[in-house]
């Protein structure tokens, strides 16, 4: 038994627990603003949108009756239920777009519509209507014209002083900067914080519900379900018209309430969302086409083309796609292996592999096979559950019949384990002679990890977080014969992956270039390193579950630069044409036109101002700042949705078959995201340039438009040296002739 005082105290504590946090929260003035807005919205709901509650009650009734009707029809019960969903609302309303009440009247009006549509009088009326719109537009323009004229006149006749007041702000600009710092930026920050506050504290959701009620969104959703239930039970097509009218009636509340400006903004926002969605879908589609193209190619692919056509870009792009495809392939094959023994505790196997990988006893396919075979040996010697990863082998099968032969569980485990190694390998699967950045991210909760292979929806500020760089290609790994470094530790390390070699011809040479080299040479050379033999047997080390997890992408300007013995193994893709930059996002033509027009004007005016003045003025500050924002938006669109199309001719490495035409897509959002450096070997040339103490300005120039003889000699050209020899010969002959004379 508790006393009254204790009960009272408990009640007091309970109230404190509820109200003290509320009171504390209300000390934040931002809450008061939100509460005031909420009351405003509620007042509108009660006093303005007076039929919203009736519509919800009606929708509830319609839903209940439709559900009963649906149930009765489904169970074939006798009933007299008349679903009210096919009737109009009792709330007073004006038919939107002057629509008639019934379907019959609509049919009559429909034929009237087309008769009227085809009359000249109606078309003339439309032209008058357009004329009226143009009248209002011209009125607005007339109002703006004086302002624009004044601005142009001021710019034209204003004295444009030339000065060298470097980086000094004009007086007005100083005041403007103060305004920006003290008023504009604090206001903007306050609004941003308030918006975040609204979202965080749940006011946004509350307001969404209030407006969903006001604009009949809740009633529309309920009516939709009600009509759906009625329609699938009765197939009453005629009543669809009533639904359309009811929907328009409900939508018209929002349509008439919000001013046209809001609808324009909403429309533009929706259009932007839609076009971006289409843009991303198109990019994904292009990526899928590229993957199809890569899948059709053999293990070794060589890409050729003249300088600047995008050979290296293309092999990099192919390598990035191939890496994702290898992970996907490994995953799919793992799932197939899993399905062969669906009750096998694969997680135990994975955890045991993880431990082995952590202590570096498993690091390659060969060590993985060894690891599994050791477990198999233990199990076959002593059949215990702990040796087969706690698999209940006494209850479940140890063999799988694939209708060709019986597969032993240990063979499947070995395959699964190798695929798992390829799938979970943390670092990049690319091994290249130049750096390639990939950014697919492994998401791991400690169970089966998944790869986020998103290529286009990437936050650019997070770029470095997920970056992985390609492994450095040690060519000794690819040499079966002599190696540049004897007993190279890395020489035997390659098993699977994507080998990418740019400028292969310069590395390997062709028969003509290697003519001086001998097989018996003491040091490694393309004739004694057996690189070609390695290339011919490349798939042997990388095959898991009958699938070769290896691909070699190489490029050079000419296919003949690479010796025929190796080149014959591959397929050659010659880039014939690179299209101009296109945009995957539709409906950007007007935006592109306006922005490029404005930026063209802006740059012209800005460069003129920079030429004349060294100081900073307010127009320069404001217009150049705005142009910067426009440039950022425009560049962002093109960098996200821009793409180039490469036209390729594919032929056999023997170069004696037919050529097939293919298209390959280079999407900016994928390949231009700091994937590789187009001047990947520039470091060499930088060293070379640093050795020189002369620049372009220090080089001698021709004196006239006709080169002097000493200027010709300065070229150190073989040709001019020959000419100089001829000239010297003539001079000698002439001197000899003179002497004889």
């Amino acid at each position, binding site marked *: 038994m508790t006393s009254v005082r204790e009960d009272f105290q408990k009640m007091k504590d309970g109230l404190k627990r509820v109200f003290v946090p509320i009171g504390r929260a209300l000390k934040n003035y931002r809450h008061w603003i939100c509460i005031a807005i909420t009351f405003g919205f509620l007042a509108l709901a009660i006093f303005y949108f007076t039929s919203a509650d009736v519509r919800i009650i009606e929708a509830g009734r319609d839903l209940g009756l439709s559900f009963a009707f649906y149930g009765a029809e489904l169970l074939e019960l006798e009933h007299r239920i008349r679903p009210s969903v096919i009737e109009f609302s009792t709330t007073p309303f004006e038919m939107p777009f*002057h629509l008639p009440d019934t379907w019959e009247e609509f049919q009559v009006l429909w034929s*009237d*519509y087309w008769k*009227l549509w085809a009359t000249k009088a109606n078309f003339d009326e439309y032209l008058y*209507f*357009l004329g009226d719109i143009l009248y209002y537009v011209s009125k607005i323009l007339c109002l703006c014209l004086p302002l624009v004229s004044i601005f142009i006149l001021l710019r034209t006749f204003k004295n444009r002083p030339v000065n060298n007041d470097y980086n000094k702000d004009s007086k007005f600009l100083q005041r403007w900067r103060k305004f920006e710092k003290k008023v504009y930026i604090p206001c903007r920050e306050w609004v941003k914080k308030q918006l975040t506050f609204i979202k965080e504290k749940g006011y946004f959701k509350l307001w969404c519900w209030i407006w969903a009620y006001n604009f009949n969104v809740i009633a529309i959703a309920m009516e939709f379900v009600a009509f759906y239930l009625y329609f699938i039970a009765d197939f009453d097509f005629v009543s669809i018209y009533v639904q359309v009218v009811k929907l328009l009636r409900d939508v018209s509340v929002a349509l008439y309430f919000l001013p046209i400006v809001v609808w324009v903004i909403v429309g533009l926002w929706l259009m932007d969302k839609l076009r971006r969605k289409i843009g991303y879908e198109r990019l994904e589609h292009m990526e899928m086409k590229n993957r199809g193209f890569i899948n059709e190619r053999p293990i070794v692919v060589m890409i050729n083309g003249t300088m600047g056509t995008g050979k290296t870009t293309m092999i990099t792009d192919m390598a990035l796609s191939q890496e994702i495809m290898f992970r996907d392939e490994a995953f799919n094959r793992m799932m197939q292996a899993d399905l062969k023994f669906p009750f096998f505790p694969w997680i135990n196997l994975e955890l045991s592999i993880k431990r082995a990988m952590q202590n570096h006893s498993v690091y390659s396919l060969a060590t993985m096979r060894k690891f599994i075979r050791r477990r198999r040996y233990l199990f076959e010697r002593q059949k215990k559950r702990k040796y087969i990863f706690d698999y209940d082998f006494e209850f479940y099968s140890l063999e799988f019949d694939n209708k060709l032969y019986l597969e032993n569980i240990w063979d499947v485990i070995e395959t699964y384990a190798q695929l798992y190694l390829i799938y979970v390998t943390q670092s990049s699967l690319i091994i290249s002679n130049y750096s390639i950045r990939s950014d697919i991210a492994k998401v791991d909760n400690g169970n089966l990890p998944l790869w986020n292979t998103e290529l286009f929806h990437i936050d650019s500020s997070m770029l470095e977080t997920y970056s992985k760089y390609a492994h450095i290609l040690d060519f000794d790994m690819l040499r079966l014969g002599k190696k540049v470094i004897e007993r190279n530790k890395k020489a035997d390390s390659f098993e699977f992956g994507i080998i990418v070699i740019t400028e292969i011809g310069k590395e390997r040479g062709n028969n003509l270039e290697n003519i001086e080299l001998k097989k018996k040479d003491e040091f490694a050379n393309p004739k004694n390193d057996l690189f070609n033999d390695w290339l011919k047997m490349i798939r042997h080390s990388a095959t898991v579950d009958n699938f070769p997890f290896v691909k070699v992408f190489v490029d050079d300007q000419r296919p003949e630069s690479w010796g025929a013995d190796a080149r014959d193994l591959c397929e050659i893709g010659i880039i014939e044409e690179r299209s*101009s930059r296109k945009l995957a996002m539709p409906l950007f*033509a*007007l935006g*592109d036109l306006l922005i490029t027009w404005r930026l063209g004007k802006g740059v012209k005016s800005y460069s003129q101002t920079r030429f004349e003045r060294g100081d900073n003025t307010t127009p320069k500050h404001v217009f150049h700042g705005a142009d910067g924002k426009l440039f950022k938006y425009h560049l962002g669109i093109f960098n996200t949705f821009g793409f180039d199309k490469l036209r390729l001719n594919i032929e056999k490495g023997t170069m004696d078959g037919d050529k097939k035409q293919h298209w390959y897509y280079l999407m900016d959002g994928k390949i231009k995201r700091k994937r590789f450096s187009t001047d990947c070997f520039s470091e060499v040339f930088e060293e070379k340039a640093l050795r020189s103490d002369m620049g372009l300005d220090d080089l001698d120039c021709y004196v006239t438009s006709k080169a002097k003889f000493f200027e010709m000699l300065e070229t150190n050209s073989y040709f001019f040296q020959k000419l100089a020899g001829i000239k010297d010969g003539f001079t000698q002959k002439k001197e000899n002739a003179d002497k004889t004379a």
Partner: protein
Amino acid sequence: MNKFKNILAVVVGVVLLLFLGYFLFTCGQVGK
């Protein structure tokens, strides 16, 4: 070339809008 394509796209867009506008305008006329 891109500029030409953009202008063409804008012109086609405006013509389509005017065409659509005629349909909507006739809707209003038939109900009067």
